């Protein structure tokens, strides 16, 4: 069984972005770019499932600009077997990405598709669920444990208040939450090996997908700033302030 794992190139987790002064967007030029952290967990999980013997081949996919090849090389260094880039400079919204992935799903027929639950740039949390819908597949979002048993996926999910476990037919779409695993460190020998692994490049038109954005961004601005507060010298002052000034206790 093949596993398809989807990775997005985003501004690095540790970098704070700035809104452009003319309100036309967020300035991401010259910022450090990395693989979306949840996608790293997705790649790690797919590779672990191959190491356990549940999966035979891990195919990493990314959609976006040519530089996404770097993100795919990282996925290959973690342990993916081959990679596919759907290259376009068009702004890609989740529905368009889901359609591209659906086309690749039809081509590759994997038993498992694993994606991060959310990208840390647009914070949409949509693509996995949309892919599942388009391909008429069951879905297990926000996964914290994945097992393949007797031709079914058994997935534990993070839900409000705790955990729930589902049993799902294969093929299945899974999106990852934080506690699913801790991605391995990529070693230099594996980075070297990754350079030799196959990486195919396609265009959205090759897959017959129209990726025109559906949502128009009219304006981007800074969030409202919080007024600076004060430092209190001790607990007694803090309690007095909360009671008499803020009146919240």
């Amino acid at each position, binding site marked *: 069984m093949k596993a398809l794992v989807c990775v997005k190139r985003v501004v690095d987790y540790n970098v704070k972005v700035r809104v452009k002064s003319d309100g036309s967007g967020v300035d991401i030029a010259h910022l450090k770019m990395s693989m979306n952290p949840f996608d790293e967990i997705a790649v790690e999980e797919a590779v672990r499932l191959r190491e356990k013997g549940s999966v035979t081949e891990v195919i990493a996919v990314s959609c976006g600009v040519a530089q996404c090849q770097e993100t795919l090389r990282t996925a290959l260094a973690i342990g993916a077997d081959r990679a596919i880039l759907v290259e376009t400079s068009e702004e890609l919204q989740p529905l368009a990405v889901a359609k591209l992935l659906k086309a690749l799903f039809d081509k590759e027929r994997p038993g498992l598709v694993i994606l991060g639950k959310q990208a840390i740039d647009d914070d949409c949390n949509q693509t996995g669920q949309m892919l*599942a819908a388009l391909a008429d597949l*069951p879905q297990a979002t926000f996964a914290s444990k994945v097992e393949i048993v007797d031709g079914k996926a058994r997935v534990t999910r993070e839900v409000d208040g705790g955990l729930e476990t589902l049993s799902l037919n294969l093929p299945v779409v899974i999106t990852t939450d934080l506690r699913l695993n801790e991605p391995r460190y990529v070693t230099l020998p594996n980075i070297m090996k990754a350079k030799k692994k196959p990486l195919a490049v396609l265009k959205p038109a090759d897959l017959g997908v129209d990726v025109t954005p559906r949502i128009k961004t009219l304006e981007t601005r800074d969030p409202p700033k919080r007024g600076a507060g004060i430092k209190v010298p001790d607990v007694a002052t803090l309690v007095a302030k909360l009671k008499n000034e803020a009146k919240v206790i």
Partner: protein
Amino acid sequence: MSVLVIAEHDNASLRGATFNTVTAAGQCSGDVHVLVAGHDAMQAARQAALIQGVAKVLHADAPGFEHGLAETLAAQILALARNYSHILFPATAWGKNIAPRVAAKLDVAQISDIIKVRSPDTFERPIYAGNAIVTVQSGDAIKVITVRTTGFDPAAASVSTAPIETVTAVADSGISSFVGSEIAKNDRPELTAAKIIVSGGRGMGSSGQFDAVLTPLADKLGAALGASRAAVDAGYAPNDWQVGQTGKIVAPQLYVACGISGAIQHLAGMKDSKVIVAINKDAEAPIFGVADYGLEADLFVAVPELVKAL
């Protein structure tokens, strides 16, 4: 055209976020209808009928809805979707699971986590962990939206009751099934609905200390317990306590951050709180930049002292 709100409930009663979603729906256009799809969920449907601004409740009842599986619920919503200009879900783990499935089947974009309705097709939402707010316009005929509850007040109760219409339940999808759940039972308020939250970070040092130091404070204040991602990653607190970009977004009256440094991802989840208190021994911690009251102190001394002083 009317607006459809998809109610989140546990079959017996509605979850708090549903009320905020009704408020957002009222700002979109037309009449607000609420779909309660559940198993033996008449009680939840009756509760929905008593929300101010709700014109009609649609009640679909079948065993397949008991556990809120996305495949079956999305099919039920799709059976009704064409009658509506907007379909709104709360932006909770539950709503986020189902909404994109509906949007994709309708071939429309989804607008996630709206915090403001500018007009029936224009909305505001945060991106980059709340470091930017975008105003977005949808050209789709049906707008599928998830609503960030902290952006909208909960709808009040009404004196009159809206009609409840029974709708035919769709068949179970048969491609997924519920095996079991482990839901922590406690008497504390739900994190996203709590008026006061006591939250701990990496500075708590261990799961034992997290519990020993923060539980008495939360008990005294009648507060919910929260945690930073660092504390969750370190195993000090369960994941569903996580406040931040990828966890829960909260806006209580009082947020007490103990041993939390204040990474942007955490601030994204709590900076709309009315009053923020930070207790941290590191004078340079970024959390002090958003705190109304900062106490630079060893939390293992200050928090027990605070419990005594309350």
